[in-house]
């Protein structure tokens, strides 16, 4: 610095101070931006991980059966009323089983195979079919196309969610010779080179564990398991179809990532499924039953309808109680109540109430509503009451804040032209505070919608197979369903749970969307 620039704001010290101030400014902005970036990252991670899991539950595999509705099976004498038919799950299931046995006659030989084959579809999955037939008895005796969901483990296998196969196309099989029953020897000069290469790659990665893995060869609807592999030849146990299918063919080899003992699906079942798929009888369809079915112990036929309806009923009860009571309480406290020690105590306690853990409200609900008033267990009525108690302080606090934000000049103006206190509140203050009050109410409701703990305590975690039709019926709610599904052991529940979380999130996003719309629509400036 030269002598020219001297002056109170031009000396070295001032410049340094200025630089420091600017740096602080930039630092603060950087902190803000990184906080927002972090929040966005966390949100997108959450949504992505749930969405990624849920995607696999968005579709599922169904099996098509073309069967004749044999009256002897589904409506035997003495049990042929519509009520009997609709309950005759065994009859319908046996139709499907015999159809499967017709398709895979080899399985008829031993009892275990028959059972395993029957496991391709769940017995209870025919229930809707039975109901349809019971409603239209003219269909009995005719042929009918029945579509039922595939067993959840096989469904996951086909989706590649459980064990990812290593797949390789192998060369042309030159000759097929049957050694004993079901045992065949396949040979082709360079047929198995690809497969051997694949096995040695896997061995390099995973070591000798590879030896325990099943290798299935599939050609058309025929599948066999490789029992011994040597250069140019393979010994194969046929699982489905005939060995002739391999002659001159270029089969696909699948190395299944898990040994058979560590899987829920056997090689045999995989072979059957592949054959059905080859026949075009298995197709992947949108999983609408997730929205139209009720809960079940079988993931492939379980749905969230009962929980959705239960949640809606619960929210209805909550809204009817918490919103009016909360709004009127806040109007009274904010606009009319005298400021004294009593109202101060009330105010402090409302704030405290908002901080009470939700599970405590559940205990209160169990003790008071169930124990003292004797209301029905597991009912949306009780759930709604408990959630209303929980939401009330939130709504009151938000509404009071909204009322407080209305400028006092508006109140003075109304009083000045001779409006009464109540007229000034209801004509002027309330419309201005409306969007804020509604925001608070809907956000409180959104919180209540996602609440699990209090509902557990009043028994809304019960297994509910019927859609509740009134607030006093047994019901469960979406977050509770998520909780109970996530504790189930089977792998198939995982994507299903994620799918229900997505449904719940959609509800929440819709509610928040309504808040934004209301704000846009009714926000007024003064």
């Amino acid at each position, binding site marked *: 610095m030269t002598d020219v620039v001297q002056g109170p704001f031009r000396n070295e010290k001032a410049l340094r101070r200025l630089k420091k101030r600017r740096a602080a400014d930039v630092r603060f902005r950087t902190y803000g931006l990184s906080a927002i970036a972090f929040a966005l990252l966390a949100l997108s991670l959450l949504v992505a991980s749930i969405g990624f899991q849920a995607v696999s539950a968005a579709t599922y595999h169904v099996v098509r059966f073309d069967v004749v509705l044999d009256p002897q099976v589904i409506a035997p004498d003495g049990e042929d009323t519509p009520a009997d038919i609709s309950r005759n799950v065994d009859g319908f299931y046996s139709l499907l089983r015999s159809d499967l046995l017709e398709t895979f006659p080899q399985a008829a030989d031993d009892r275990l195979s028959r059972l395993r084959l029957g496991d391709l579809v769940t017995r209870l999955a025919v229930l809707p079919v039975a109901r349809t037939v019971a409603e239209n008895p003219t269909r009995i005796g005719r042929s009918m196309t029945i579509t039922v969901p595939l067993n959840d483990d096989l469904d996951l296998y086909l989706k590649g969610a459980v064990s990812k196969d290593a797949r390789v196309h192998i060369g042309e099989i030159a000759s097929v010779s049957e050694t004993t029953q079901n045992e065949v020897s396949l040979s082709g000069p360079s047929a198995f080179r690809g497969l051997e290469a694949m096995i040695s790659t896997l061995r390099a990665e995973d070591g000798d564990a590879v030896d325990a893995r099943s290798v299935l060869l599939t050609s058309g609807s025929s599948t066999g398991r490789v029992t011994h592999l040597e250069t140019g030849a393979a010994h194969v146990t046929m699982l489905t179809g005939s060995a002739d299918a391999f002659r001159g063919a270029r089969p696909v080899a699948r190395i299944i990532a898990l040994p058979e003992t560590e899987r829920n699906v056997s090689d045999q079942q995989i072979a059957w499924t592949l054959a059905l798929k080859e026949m075009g009888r298995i197709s992947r369809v949108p999983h609408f039953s997730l929205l139209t079915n009720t809960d079940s112990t079988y993931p492939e036929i379980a749905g969230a309808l009962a929980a959705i309806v239960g949640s809606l009923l619960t929210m209805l009860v909550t809204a009817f109680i918490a919103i009016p009571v909360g709004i009127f309480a806040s109007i009274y406290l904010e606009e009319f109540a005298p400021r004294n020690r009593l109202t101060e105590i009330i105010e402090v306690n409302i704030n405290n109430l908002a901080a009470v853990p939700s599970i405590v409200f559940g205990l209160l609900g169990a003790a008071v509503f169930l124990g003292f008033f004797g209301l029905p267990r597991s009912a949306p009525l009780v759930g709604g009451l408990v959630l209303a108690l929980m939401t009330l302080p939130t709504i009151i606090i938000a509404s009071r804040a909204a009322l407080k934000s209305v400028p006092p*000049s508006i109140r003075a*103006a*109304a009083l*000045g*032209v001779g409006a*009464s206190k109540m007229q000034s509140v209801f004509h002027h203050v309330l419309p201005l505070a409306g969007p804020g009050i509604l925001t608070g109410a809907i956000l409180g409701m959104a919180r209540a919608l996602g609440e699990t703990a209090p509902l557990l305590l009043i028994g809304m975690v019960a297994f509910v197979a019927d859609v509740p039709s009134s607030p006093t019926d047994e019901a469960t709610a979406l977050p509770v369903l998520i909780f109970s599904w996530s504790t189930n052991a089977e792998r198939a529940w995982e994507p299903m749970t994620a799918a229900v979380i997505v449904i719940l999130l959609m509800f929440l996003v819709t509610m928040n969307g309504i808040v934004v719309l209301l704000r846009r629509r009714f926000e007024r400036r003064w």
Partner: protein
Amino acid sequence: METTVTESRENASSELSVDQGEGLTFPRIECRNINVFYGDKQAIFDISLSIPDRAVTALIGPSGCGKSTFLRCLNRMNDTIESCKVTGEIIMDGENINNPDIDPVLLRSRVGMVFQKPNPFPKSIYDNIAYGPRIHGLADSREDLDAMVEKSLRRAGLWEEVKDRLTSPGNSLSGGQQQRLCIARAIAVRPEVILMDEPCSALDPVATARIEELIDELRKRYCIVIVTHSMQQAARVSQRTAFFHLGELVEMGDTDQIFTNPRERRTEDYITGRFG
């Protein structure tokens, strides 16, 4: 009784109004021994004064001297402040309006108020004016109400500016227009007295001049009490002036006399700008 007063007021022509300055008509409001307390703190000490009808009375004094508080006694706006207590008598039309038996809501329709900051309702211009008549049931039909709105806006000198956009929000007007809208709103309920609490303090000189013209026009029909910080404004628009200091009424008299020949030393000091 009340209706006849209002009617005669509505029909009053400017010829019947008082002559400027001296010779004022009978007192409209008679205040006796007014004391105002905020909790333990006394804000106004034993003030007695009379306010003439069809004239503008200006209340002047330094900040915190209690002139706004006194003004708010006249339509019992102090009732809305919980800790505030007013004693003394305020006689209007032979009634003590400070009596707890008097309904303050009814009183406020007879004593209109215009505030420091323009505070139109966040509604249309039309609804701003129509709100008072509506809650008091003053209009029997839609046409009646339309006529009332027009008359109020004309009297507030706003009609020509807003007649084509009565449905646009009151907040869309300029500051001065908003304040005239508030005056029109106060007029619409046919008050007898209009209280103005520093009505021009948030306005620019041009808008202030328009409001002052309006006040001069309005005094032909109404009893107006205005609180102002501007000595010039008090001198321009008022016929009577009261000087408040530290919660006491120091001096009250005709405006000319107060500004040219004050009796009290404190008044002179304030007017000449030596304190305040």
